[in-house]
């Protein structure tokens, strides 16, 4: 018992320490900086001001925010549409093939997503592999402009975040009791009815979880729009990065970070509410 609780204390303690040192403390700095003044000499000057937040709520930043939300929302919808059929298929095939497919899906995770984004550039650039293929198949006459467009940003985000959508949906589909589908068919339901009234509601927790896990990172991932979208797309993530690394305006970057965090907290709260509702309004497992 003693060694067990000792192990528990050590494992929980070390995680807490890690989070404190690398998440909580830096974040407190960000919070504090967001109320400080900019100082060209020392990065920030410890003088209280609301100015950063006033600057943030400028039309420019609101447009950035709006674009980011639209992009994140679009990414979530596309990943959902791609992931749901795949996850459904994954949950219904023989164990052996399923394990291979899951492995194939997870292997790319072992490579840095930054490197994989560079790989996308090689695929999409004017004289890249995709255009080469399209040209040689005579499907297009001149190279398509994919890179540095909104399209390539979507493709990049969807590609990177797809597994985060697939896994939670897959797990909820696996839990789906096939006998319920039989019962619905027995009661006269067509495939369409069964999907809308049985399968979809019962896999809703997976959809909500997956959407959260795609939407929130999509709001903040700055390097994918940076690399694939070029200078055209300015999103919250890029805005923050630019304030810190390019213009050197740490207080403004901090204020933007705080705003982004608040937006995410809002969505997490919505997620919490909706997943709790989805759970209490179903899922006999609780009984």
């Amino acid at each position, binding site marked *: 018992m003693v060694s067990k609780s000792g192990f528990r204390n050590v494992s929980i303690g070390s995680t807490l320490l890690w989070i404190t040192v690398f998440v909580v403390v830096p974040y407190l700095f960000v919070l504090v900086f967001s109320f400080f003044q900019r100082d060209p000499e020392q990065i920030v000057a410890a003088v209280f001001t609301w100015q950063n937040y006033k600057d943030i709520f400028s039309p420019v930043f609101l447009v950035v925010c709006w674009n980011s939300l639209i992009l994140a929302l679009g990414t979530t919808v596309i990943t959902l549409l791609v992931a749901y059929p795949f996850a459904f298929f994954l949950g219904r095939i023989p164990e052996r093939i399923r394990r291979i497919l899951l492995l194939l899906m997870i292997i790319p995770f072992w490579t840095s997503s930054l490197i994989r984004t560079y790989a996308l550039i090689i695929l999409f650039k004017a004289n890249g592999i995709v255009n080469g293929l399209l040209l040689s198949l005579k499907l297009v006459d001149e190279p398509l402009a994919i890179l540095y467009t909104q399209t390539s940003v979507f493709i990049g985000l969807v590609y990177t975040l797809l597994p985060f959508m697939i896994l939670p949906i897959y797990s909820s589909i696996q839990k789906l009791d096939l006998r319920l589908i*039989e019962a619905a*068919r027995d*009661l006269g339901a067509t495939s369409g009815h069964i999907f809308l*009234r049985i399968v979809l509601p019962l896999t809703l927790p997976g959809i909500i979880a997956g959407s959260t896990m795609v939407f929130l990172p999509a709001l903040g991932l700055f390097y994918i729009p940076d690399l694939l979208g070029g200078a055209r797309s300015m999103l919250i993530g890029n805005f923050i990065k630019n304030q810190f690394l390019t213009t050197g305006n740490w207080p403004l970057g901090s204020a933007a970070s705080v705003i982004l965090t608040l937006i995410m907290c809002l969505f997490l709260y919505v997620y919490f509410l909706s997943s709790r509702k989805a759970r209490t*309004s*179903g899922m*006999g*497992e609780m*009984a």
Partner: protein
Amino acid sequence: MESLPIVRLQGVTKRFDDVCAVDSLDLDIYQGEFLTLLGPSGCGKTTVLRLIAGLETLSAGEISMNGSRLNGTPPNKRNVNTVFQSYALFPHMTVFENIAFGLRLKQSDKQAIRHQVSEALDLVKLSGLENRRPHQLSGGQQQRVAMARAIVNKPQVLLLDEPLSALDYRLRQEMEIELKRVHRQLGITFVFVTHDQEEAISMSDRIAVMNEGRVEQIGTPIKIYEEPENMFVARFVGEINVFDGHVVNVNNGSAVVDIHGQLFPVQNRKKAGTGDKVRVLLRPEDIQVTRDADKNGGPALSGKVDEVIYKGKTVDLVISLDAGETINVTQFFNEDQEDLVYGEGERVHVDWLYGWEVIL
């Protein structure tokens, strides 16, 4: 039973990979009857039910309903509904929504749906629980919701797949009576699957005893219990004692069978000939036990009491015969017989009344 069958199974066969679950089975199901498919697990009884429901596809044969072929008709187009062993209630819907599920697919009149659902709830005695969710109900209540959800669609045939097996003994007995009442009130055909022979006997109009994908015998509970046609039915339904013997004499409808040197007259339903080896089957309650051999004057087998099991309204005896067999005997108490209580080790003689035996 002269009427046309409502459901007719002809040469119905179902193979799963190489395993034959149902083997060219013929079965007629009549309007309004309570038919039970009884058999050990793996005998194919649930598969037969699923074939009728359309949840499995036939490997061979034909199922027809009201004279028209059902092969290939999807389950949602068949006028049958199933009560599943697992109940398969939709966990994200209330009791009301579960029961209204089938109705809402077919009609849109909300008032009519509400009326029919509350009628079905009344029938299964669950009124007032409309807004509960399945996980808030007890096993017995879930069972009733599953019943209501099926019967509210007014199917011609209701299929019940071991619906009582998950309930405890008391509740099961209660539900047996409830099921019979619902059957009477609705007047529709019930096809009930069970491995519990007591359930089958107490509820059914007819029982089809199944084994290895085939029907071994079909008939009323009394026929099945008292006149089993083969050893499987005899052994599976109730307890049975088996005596090996051979026929020494045949005379009109009766025969004389030599069992361990004792000559027993029996009814010759099997039409056995002289010299044939036969098995004489007797239910435990059909055997008489006496202390002296000559009391009844006829043939008897001697043995000694091994065990006495007092059961309240009966006493069960385990008797080992001098010839080697061990038999079970059930004796009912009645007021003018006080000497039923035998001691262990006591010497006894057993026989039976002419005609109470079955020979195979």
